[in-house]
């Protein structure tokens, strides 16, 4: 018995160290992939920046769906709010410093996140889903009709951000935008890594599994998810603002139901409830989209649908979830 306890105490330590180590490894892999992307696809940096921007949306969705268990089909509302706010700040208020635009985007995303949270958490199950869809449609209609502010269906154009830090122009090849995006992604990733490992993150995972148990511990389910919605909104806001700054236009598609649904597809493809899953899902989905829609744009929606059905049937834990479960099992078998 004592021997067993000792062994466990020893086994406990390295597990913890390994966790921190895998965090560093993950960040290192993201950096390496970013550098590789820069040199391998110098003509496609705009696409890579778009991938980063969408990855931030998917990470943001992962926070509420993957970590808190709230199914939503309206998460693009948060992303679009960030994009339009950053864009309108530049076009209508002359706030053209990219960092200031980013701050505006984060604020707007947070506000949209809190608003969505208040509404979505009013109901459960199907009505909750309906609320989330209605929210993104409502945002879309509002942006469509307030065309003097948003450019309506033509999109909000002529956003002209200043050079980053006064030094780096946003060039035609998207080099600055790409580097800016990579840095933002890394910062968000590290912050979120801390958040999901913190007591708060543990509380959220608990809520996802059993909200009744969490209430019986005396914790507020509603309050906790609202906090997560605020963080999620901020992250989506970063993604939206990055999109506005890098493409210099904001279109109604950034507030669409389709984008919300696609973000969910990407998340599930990669695997819910893990930050790397969200990243892997986004990269594989958008890379795949780029290839397929170049070959045959007509079939894109059919293929997304088929992909979704296949993932649900054969890899319900997503690419990352399936792979890590496989590795875990092999490690255990070896022991």
């Amino acid at each position, binding site marked *: 018995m004592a021997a067993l306890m000792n062994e466990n105490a020893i086994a406990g330590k390295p597990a913890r160290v390994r966790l921190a180590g895998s965090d560093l490894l993950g960040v290192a892999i993201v950096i390496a992939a970013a550098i590789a992307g820069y040199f391998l696809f110098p003509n496609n940096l705009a696409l890579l920046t778009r991938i980063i921007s969408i990855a931030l949306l998917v990470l943001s969705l992962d926070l509420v769906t993957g970590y808190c268990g709230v199914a939503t089909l309206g998460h693009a509302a948060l992303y679009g709010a960030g994009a339009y706010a950053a864009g309108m700040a530049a076009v209508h208020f002359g706030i053209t410093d990219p960092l200031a635009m980013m701050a505006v985007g984060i604020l707007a995303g947070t506000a949209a996140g809190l608003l969505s949270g208040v509404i979505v958490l009013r*109901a*459960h199950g*199907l009505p909750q889903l*309906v609320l989330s869809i209605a929210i993104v449609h409502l945002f879309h209609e509002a942006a469509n009709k307030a065309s003097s502010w948003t450019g309506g269906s033509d999109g909000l154009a002529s956003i002209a951000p200043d050079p980053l830090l006064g030094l780096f122009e946003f060039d035609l090849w998207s080099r600055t935008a790409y580097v800016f995006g990579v840095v933002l992604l890394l910062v968000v990733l590290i912050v979120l890594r801390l958040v999901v490992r913190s007591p708060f993150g543990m509380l959220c995972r608990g809520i996802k599994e059993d909200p009744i148990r969490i209430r019986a511990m005396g914790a507020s389910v509603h309050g906790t998810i609202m906090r997560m919605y605020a963080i999620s909104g901020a992250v989506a806001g970063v993604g939206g603002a990055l999109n506005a700054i890098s493409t210099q236009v904001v279109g109604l598609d950034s507030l669409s139901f389709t984008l919300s649904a696609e973000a*969910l597809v990407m998340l599930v493809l990669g695997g819910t409830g893990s930050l790397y899953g969200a990243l892997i899902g986004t990269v594989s989905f958008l890379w795949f989209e780029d290839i397929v829609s170049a070959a045959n744009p007509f079939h894109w*929606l059919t293929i*997304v649908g088929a992909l*979704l059905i296949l993932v649900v049937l054969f890899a319900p834990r997503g690419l990352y979830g399936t792979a890590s479960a496989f590795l875990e099992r092999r490690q255990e078998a070896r022991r």
Partner: protein
Amino acid sequence: MQTVLSIAVDALAYGMVLFVISIGLSVTMGLMRVVNLAHGAFAMIGGYIASYAARDLGVGYGVAVLIAVFGTILIAIPIERLLYRRIYGAPELTQVLMTIGITFCIIGIANFVFGPTLKTIPLPPELQGSINLGFRAVATHRLFAILCGLVVAGALWYLIEKTAFGVKLRASVDNAAMAAALGVRTQIVYAVSFAIAIGLAAFGGVVGAELLPVEPYYALRYMVTFLVVVSIGGAGSIPGALLACLLLGGIDTTGRYLMPEFGEFFFYLAVIAIVCVFPRGLAGRAK
């Protein structure tokens, strides 16, 4: 006054079309607890088949309706066998993903086969004109849609309340395990209900084609509308669904009449307000 009556007739017609399409969704959701986002896609398939039958094969309206209903059911059977069966009792997110996947596939295929344009279903001469109701001439087709809604509501009420199948259906909705223990073959009840639900969706898609035009994005455009009916009316409740449809029809039509620019905006705002006030639906037992 005239405007009010006009709105009322249009709202009633729109509400009844919504009812015919959504009631099947409501029943299956109450019965099988599946969040089926692809329901509207089956209404769309019905519309496409009817349009093809009437315009390309040249059959009459009534025959086209029949071909559409049975054709859609035929298409739905393998989908139910291969895909829906796997998600009964699965977590909500899984159901959402699977049925969105099905919706996307159907949209993509419809787009490929029929092209992105709007499809019409030619009306027979009897339904084309208008009938003078004293205060206003009303398109015969609208009255036909209202009539269809009433007939469907009545027939369903009879089926569920007065027939042996209805008893089995209600027992299965209440407690599937208990019903099965009492000898109800729930698998068959499920299959028949699913077929009826899909058939009604296709019927509604055809009859309502003048109000909800058939095009590839139909399934996405009206997805929220059909789901709202169920979440406001309460899954499995016919009176609830009827009430929800009339309410939504009224809100949507009034919005379009009085504020054509902002119609959809107010529609979604009203949806959010209603669901927030009645998170369990008007009937109060939606899960």
